[in-house]
């Protein structure tokens, strides 16, 4: 059984290079409310009761935790064994590892110290289980568009399944015990990735982020803690995990997200009548359709305007899904993983411009 995991991991590694030709993954699709919501993520933090937390674990203990979590999912009597692969980080190149972060499958922290670490991933890349990150087990469910309750339900099912063979540290008052007290309680962090070009443009984000922090929610850059805001992409998530049930936290986040969506849409409707905004959208499309050199930053800024243009019907010819697929494909490490790792930044910018021109041919 364990041997087959190794083969699976090697097979998966080979497939990574060709993944862009395969069936569409969640991050290439457009889901509910996709004009504003790119994707939804729900994460659960769990720890084994009989082991120290990762910061105080010996390498042997880390290996034991990894084995137990892996067996819990991949062992013969697990209902979902055939849906998951175990990937050992040591088997991946640096570019492949960074590409995982670009696709939000693992956290930046997870690959920063990847030696000896591994994770489980579902075939469709919607579910990943990181082992020995900040906590022993981090269950993560990703979904395109706005799908908070669906994602939370799936994470809950994976947790229940793991709980059949693993004992999780739990306290009746403090809930699930975590290495960092900020995750105590449900251990659940739910988030939505939002594209808010109009609210960014009219300077409303400052007021919004202040108001959100009062509601126990936090809004930050795309790749989570400490990351920058690129192309008007924001991650909105719940901050409080103790004293609110999973359901309450998800409902709260859902309500606020719906309010933000309606505010963004209203602002978009009025901005899209403004000739300066129309000009900016048109020029962005022009540059992307004709550039011969494109850095990732420039791409992200311009595609944000184009995405806004498509959603507001100022532009046509391509879909939001096309944009999602392209955006993942032109991230630096994902490009390197697909085209070979010895690309220089300059060569990458040429290749990126080529791919963007090709993908946006029908854009007008």
């Amino acid at each position, binding site marked *: 059984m*364990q041997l087959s995991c190794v083969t699976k991991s090697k097979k998966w590694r080979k497939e990574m290079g060709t993944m862009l030709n395969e069936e569409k993954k969640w991050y290439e699709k457009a889901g509910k409310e996709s004009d504003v919501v790119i994707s939804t993520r729900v994460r659960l933090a769990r*720890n084994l*009761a*009989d*082991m*120290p*937390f990762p*910061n*105080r674990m010996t390498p042997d203990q880390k290996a034991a935790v990894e*084995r*137990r979590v892996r*067996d819990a999912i991949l062992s013969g009597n697990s209902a979902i064994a055939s849906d998951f692969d175990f990937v050992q980080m040591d088997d991946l190149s640096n570019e492949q590892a960074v590409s995982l972060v670009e696709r939000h499958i693992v956290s930046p922290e997870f690959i920063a110290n990847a030696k000896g670490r591994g994770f489980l991933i579902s075939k469709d890349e919607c579910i990943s289980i990181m082992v020995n990150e900040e906590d022993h087990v981090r269950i993560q469910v990703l979904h395109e568009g706005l799908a908070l309750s669906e994602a939370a339900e799936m994470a*809950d099912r994976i*947790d*229940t399944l793991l*709980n*059949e*063979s693993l*004992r*999780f*540290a*739990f*306290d*009746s*008052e*403090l*809930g*699930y*015990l*975590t*290495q*960092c*007290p*900020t995750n*105590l*309680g*449900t251990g659940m962090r739910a988030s939505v990735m939002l594209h808010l070009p109009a609210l960014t443009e009219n*300077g409303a*984000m*400052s007021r919004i*982020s*202040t108001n959100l*922090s*009062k*509601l*126990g929610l*936090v809004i*930050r850059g795309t790749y989570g*803690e*400490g990351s*920058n*805001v690129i192309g008007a992409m924001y991650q909105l998530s719940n901050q*409080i*995990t*103790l*004293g*609110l*049930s*999973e*359901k309450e936290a998800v409902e709260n986040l859902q309500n606020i997200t719906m309010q933000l969506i309606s505010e963004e849409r209203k602002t978009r409707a009025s901005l899209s009548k403004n000739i300066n905004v129309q000009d900016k959208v048109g020029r962005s499309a022009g540059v992307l359709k004709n550039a011969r050199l494109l850095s990732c930053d420039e791409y992200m800024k311009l595609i944000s305007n184009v995405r806004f243009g498509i959603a507001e019907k100022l532009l046509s010819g391509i879909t939001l899904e096309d944009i999602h697929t392209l955006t993942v494909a032109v991230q630096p490490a994902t490009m390197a993983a697909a085209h070979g790792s010895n690309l220089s930044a300059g060569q990458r910018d040429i290749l990126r411009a080529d791919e963007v021109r090709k993908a946006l041919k029908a854009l007008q």
Partner: protein
Amino acid sequence: MMCQNCGKNPATTHIKTIVNGKLAEYDLCSECARAKGYKSFFNFDDMDFDFNNLLGSFIGAPTGRSNAMRCPKCGASFEEIAESGKIGCAECYNVFRDRLMPTIHRIHGAAKHKGKVPGSNALRIVEPAGKIAVVEEPTPIEKKRAELKEAIEKQDFEHAAELRDEIKEMEKGDGNHA
């Protein structure tokens, strides 16, 4: 008034948070406020915020006492936890509960866990009359062994043989976990 986080600079930012209807207020210097993410949108881009470091200082500065109490399970002292912002193990939450509670309340409000409770297979820590007890449900293999004993007592040998084989299988499975 000095900053409640670093204690070094005068507090310039007053922060109010309402968590679960409970108002928490603190005063921070501009640097700490920035680090915690309270700042204008216009500087949002270079927001760089490591909660663990900040948490370390929230939990309280290390006092450097040499005879510090240590967690019997993982060996962490409260000073080490305060410095790193990372709890050592599940047992630390019991050993250092009184000293961790103010921080936990600052983060989440004075709240008790609401939500999912693990299934019977999980370790439960309950506190009857102030004493900490560890209640463990029987594992599946223990349940089977009890069933086997019962079957033998009832002289249901066919069922007992089945159970014996099942237990053998389970024991094999357990070996892989060790």
